[in-house]
């Protein structure tokens, strides 16, 4: 996303976010300007999705304080604004992590988002790549003040491949935009209102089109899950691999999530904001054939390990951003190499016994006998 924006024609609006100034094209939102800077100053976004028109403004986690509107009108804005839907002006000064008001409001939004969330992360397929988990980890509190029964819904199958678990939903509306904008059949939307509002289809109709699977990719929480992957594995145990195939419906560029040689799941490739990557300006949505039917390594041309650069659990132990800490012990010890300390295993008895050749479990006796 950030790369795309930089390529665009002359940047001429200067905006300062948390004391970092960046030049952006007119019409850029505060959130996208912050994404150009990257790092901690980027507000979290649960409902905004740059590839979906009209998304954003609903979750209120991206609220920022505008300390000065523009050069022409340097008055501060009285209310916190949703950075995903507010365009930058020349000379705008924005406070995100430097504003206590923003931090407080955001913590409040997170608390409110979580009061009706089941917090069933241990059995949720989204755990590990869940935006709400990250958000809760960064801005939430350890306990909740909510003492009432949480709102629940029945699980619902929408189409043969997707299950809707409405209890987990945070009503970001992303999936309804996918249905609206990727296909010409609008088959689902929001029923009811308030805290009993739910995503649903028209009287138990199935969502049946070639791109419906992208709803799973855009869902920030575990409300829409891939039925071919449900309860198969935890995402952090799987190995993401970039692959492609010739597909007549979509771009065919995907990430395979493998365990051994088995392809457990196929998703679109995602960027560091958890959004589907773009190719030549077009979002790389993938079709249901690629996503649900091609579950064998031989169906794909493997490109290599996938880059996971999201700051979430799934990035742990993956291939990029891995920084091996520099060995500083000899510096600390004044050039002395503490051999004994570091090589304890080479002189330990533990490694001198071939455990596999023992008839039973190893006990302290095993080692004592060896010594005698």
């Amino acid at each position: 996303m950030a790369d795309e924006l930089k390529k665009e024609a002359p940047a001429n609006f200067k905006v300062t976010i948390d004391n970092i100034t960046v030049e952006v094209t007119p019409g850029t939102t505060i959130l996208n300007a912050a994404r150009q800077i990257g790092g901690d100053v980027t507000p979290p976004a649960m409902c905004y999705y740059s590839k979906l028109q009209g998304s954003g403004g609903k979750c209120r986690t991206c609220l920022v304080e505008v300390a000065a509107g523009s050069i022409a009108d340097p008055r501060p804005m009285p209310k916190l604004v949703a950075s995903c839907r507010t365009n930058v002006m020349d000379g705008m000064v924005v406070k995100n992590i430097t504003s206590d008001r923003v931090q407080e409001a955001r913590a409040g939004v997170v608390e409110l988002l979580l009061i009706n969330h089941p917090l069933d992360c241990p059995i949720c397929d989204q755990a590990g790549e869940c935006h709400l988990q990250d958000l809760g980890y960064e801005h939430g509190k350890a306990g909740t003040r909510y003492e009432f029964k949480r709102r629940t819904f029945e699980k619902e199958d929408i189409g043969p491949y997707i299950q809707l678990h409405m209890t987990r939903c945070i009503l970001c509306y992303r999936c309804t935009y996918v249905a609206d904008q990727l296909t010409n059949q609008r088959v689902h939307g929001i029923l009811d209102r308030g805290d009993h509002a739910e995503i649903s289809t028209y009287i138990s109709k199935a969502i049946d089109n070639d791109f419906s699977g992208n709803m799973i990719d855009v869902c920030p929480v575990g409300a829409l899950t891939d039925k071919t992957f449900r309860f198969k594995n935890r995402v952090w145990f799987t190995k993401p691999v970039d692959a492609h195939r010739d597909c007549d419906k979509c771009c065919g560029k995907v990430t395979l999530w493998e365990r051994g040689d088995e392809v457990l799941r196929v998703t679109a490739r995602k960027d560091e904001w958890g959004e589907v990557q773009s190719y030549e300006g077009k979002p790389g949505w993938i079709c249901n054939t690629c996503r649900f039917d091609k579950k064998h390594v031989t169906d794909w041309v493997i490109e290599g390990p996938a880059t996971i650069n999201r700051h979430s659990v799934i990035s742990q132990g993956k291939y990029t951003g891995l920084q091996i800490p520099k060995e500083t012990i000899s510096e600390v010890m004044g050039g002395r190499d503490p051999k004994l300390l570091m090589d304890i295993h080479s002189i330990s008895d533990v490694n001198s016994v071939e455990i596999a050749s023992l008839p039973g479990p190893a006990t302290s006796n095993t080692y004592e006998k060896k010594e005698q």
Partner: protein
Amino acid sequence: MGRKLLLDKAHIENIRLYDVYRREGGYRSVEKALKTMTPDAVTDEVKKSGLRGRGGAGFPTGMKWGFLAKPAGVPRYLVVNADESEPGTFKDRYLMEFIPHLLIEGMITSSYALGSNRSYIYIRGEYAWIVDILDQAIQEAKNNGWLGKNILGSGFDCEIYIQRGAGAYICGEETALLESLEGKRGNPRIKPPFPAVRGLWDCPTVVNNVETIAAVVPIINDGGEEYAKIGIGKSTGTKLISACGNIKKQGVYEIEMNISVEEFIYSDEYCGGIGNDRKLKACIPGGSSVPILPANLLLKTSKGENRMMTYESLADGGFASGSMMGSGGFIVLDDTQCVVRHTYTLARFYRHESCGQCSPCREGTGWMEKILLNIENGKGKMTDIDLLWDIQRKIEGNTICPLGDAAAWPVAAAIRHFRDEFEWHITNPDDAQRRNFGLANYAEPLKVVV
């Protein structure tokens, strides 16, 4: 006796019918505007009058009309907001029910000023019988050449359509109203762009309250300056107040904005005092979403001045010791009323009416309702009061539309002014519960905070 501009003819028999209305001087403003004035002159007249939006926010109408973008080749729309759903407010209903032609007349004049050839009335779904009344009025106006093509030979075309809502409070918010009018789910839009630039079907649109549009008629008839002479300061003209609650005479009153709140409540011309000659405890002066005020702060401002029925005076002192004019839904509580129960009822309403689009309002309103129900039923804890305060702070100002604020303000004001009553509910759970079923001894009501 205050001057009446809107309801002065409401008592005349059959004023609902065109012939009577015309005989009493109706449609003069349309004649005057279309024959002798340019559209801009009409807008100037409204600006001069100092008319402020009667729907709740009190934004100057002339300024709002001035903001309307006028790109060539793009239609402009006037939408009248008749989705009057605020608890305590029923002034538009009275106006539309008894003198529907006043609204139609105001709409034709305003449409002429704004250049709107198609104007809409978005009416609350529950007002089913008023739709018939308005339909008839529009038909009569059309038959007599006040609507349609080339009205009065001026070359101005205008049609008025009525759209019924489906019973959602949120559709009274102007952008949600436009969404609903377009046939979509009534979710408020994110602003900017404002409706004046991109409103109905992405065209410039002005959304005004019924009373605002009706007030255009006397402004054009008598001139804006004449209208501005009534009232105090920036609160010009007359305002319809729908008074209800524990007063002797409930109903819709048209007041000049220069009387004091005390006069409005106690004079026989208006409310006639508190019912059963009890003591005034509290009052919500502008519809359910504005802060509640205890009796002492209602009659006098914190500076010790008399509080007047004007936009400025009612808002004097900010939310710490003031309230708002709002939409004019005047709800009076006498000393037997329970503020906690009252707040719970409002919280329940806002929970039910929250559209569920943005998270603070969707989740927060439900949470507040549950806590308030607990306190009301004597199951509350002392920490619940602070928790309520914290939740309302998290909602207020952080939502897309003003419904979040509207849900937060009543709770905040109730805690601010009546905290001891909340505490009483918590420390006396049995009494609180008994009171709930009407069994408490009302002879010794709670002490009013003075």
